[in-house]
């Protein structure tokens, strides 16, 4: 399997073309913008919280298949998780795409992005949504 085939799997392309949770949330608890100046990808992430728990997550923006599918799958995954659990998922996701570790089972579909680890130039695309998540959680906690 070529690097390309490893990366652009069916799952990813489907999420990229029909991203889940795409669109702004009304009255979000927190809303942060993310920007990948190195490729022009943009994301705006919206979270609704009930106490410590993420009850809804949505995003808008534009970007490549990697960044869009990552945002799509991430917003699926974090719904219903506590902030700490979400941060733990972020850690595991980055371990996979930055450090090249095998995907943690909790990452579910996101394991489809493991090929990114071998395509250094695309790591920032894959982590764009996750960096926005981290920033959103920071903002909630410091508010």
């Amino acid at each position, binding site marked *: 399997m070529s690097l390309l*085939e490893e990366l*652009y799997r069916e799952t990813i392309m489907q999420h990229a073309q029909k991203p889940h949770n795409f669109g702004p949330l009304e009255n979000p608890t927190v809303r942060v913008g993310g920007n990948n100046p190195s*490729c022009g990808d943009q994301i705006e992430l919206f979270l609704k919280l009930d106490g410590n728990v993420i009850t809804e997550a949505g995003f808008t923006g534009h970007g490549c298949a990697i960044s869009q599918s990552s945002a799509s799958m991430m917003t699926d995954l974090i719904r219903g998780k506590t902030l700490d659990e979400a941060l733990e998922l972020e850690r595991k996701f980055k371990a996979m795409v930055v450090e090249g570790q095998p995907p943690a089972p909790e990452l579910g579909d996101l394991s489809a992005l493991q090929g990114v680890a071998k395509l250094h130039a695309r790591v920032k695309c894959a982590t764009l949504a996750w960096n926005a998540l981290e920033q959103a959680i920071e903002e909630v906690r410091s508010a």
Partner: protein
Amino acid sequence: MFEPETIKRDFPIFANNPDLVFLDSAASSQKPRSVIDAMTLYYERDHANVHRAAYALSMRATDAYEDARGKVARFLGADTDEIVFVRNATEALNLAAHAWGLNNLHAGDEILLTEMEHHANLVPWQLVAARTGAVIKAVPVTREGRLDLDAFDSLLSERTRIFSLTQMSNVLGTVNPVAELAAAAREKGALTVVDGAQAAPHLPVRVHELNADFYALSGHKMLGPTGAGALWGRREVLKKLPPFLGGGSMIEEVQLERSTYAPPPQRFEAGTPAIAEAIGLGAAADYLMELGMENVWMHDRQLVEYALDELSAVPDLILYGPRGEDRGGVVAFNLGSLHPHDLATALDEHGVAVRTGHHCAQPLHRRLNATASARASFYVYSTKSDVDRLVEALKKAREFFAGWL
């Protein structure tokens, strides 16, 4: 005879990356051995700080640095003391915008730009406009990817104090009729700044024939090292221009509270300059003058015509920019609805290096109705076989992503 295959052998990067199809020269060109060697030899034999030379080594360094200035002047058809060394075209444009703009623009004055400008020729003027209350206007781009000359005529007015435009678009490849537009601006009493970042590497430039007042270029896009560029300024304009950066070498007399300044070009070169890089840029200018800029342009023209013909045959490929004598060696494109970043990854897997993104031209991309594009760009070492490899890789990418376009 202009033989790109032979020229390629002067560039060590290709020997070290034998499978590389490098199509990103508009972002930054590769360097010939003569440029790399000029800098290495300088460090190994002649380095010392320039100016205030009281010993032989420093005098050698000063001579080499000032010789490089002469070479850049010759390259542009300018006088030596009209050449200011800067880091890159961006700094050159900032210098012109800040030193001239902050001291000459007032509320309501108009700065005329174009919609095809690189951010380097937009943001500095925005910063200056914010400080002075001047207003930015921009000449729109036509569907074909040329400046809308009728719109130019109606936008240019007595309120226009400065007109700044690129000689060649880094996305569309369009070469603008600068001499004509600058003459019109001059008639209205406006100065013209030319962003030559893309044009200077690719076509013969005689600054005085452009009717312009400033001309900016980047060395790293014209076979020179990173860290060196130049701003040409018309002597009478430079003479009256206040300094931009302050520091050593640009002064005449310094008191604690105030100073007087050296004449140009020193007035605009504060601190220890990028000596080795200027020398490298001089060597690059020599290399290009040796090839002959007419030949470089002809080669670019032939290659881009060939590329546009071949690329037109790739299904689903959207091509930007005009066709004609005014089209340089830059080709931006998109493959259906595929994000260019994904496309570039696929091309890279076949050894073909293109750039993607907005190419520092967000307003232009808005006009093109694209958030981003992929871009292939050519230079003296680019060959038809490079174009063939691009076309082949594009076809393979199209097959790979079939169903997702």
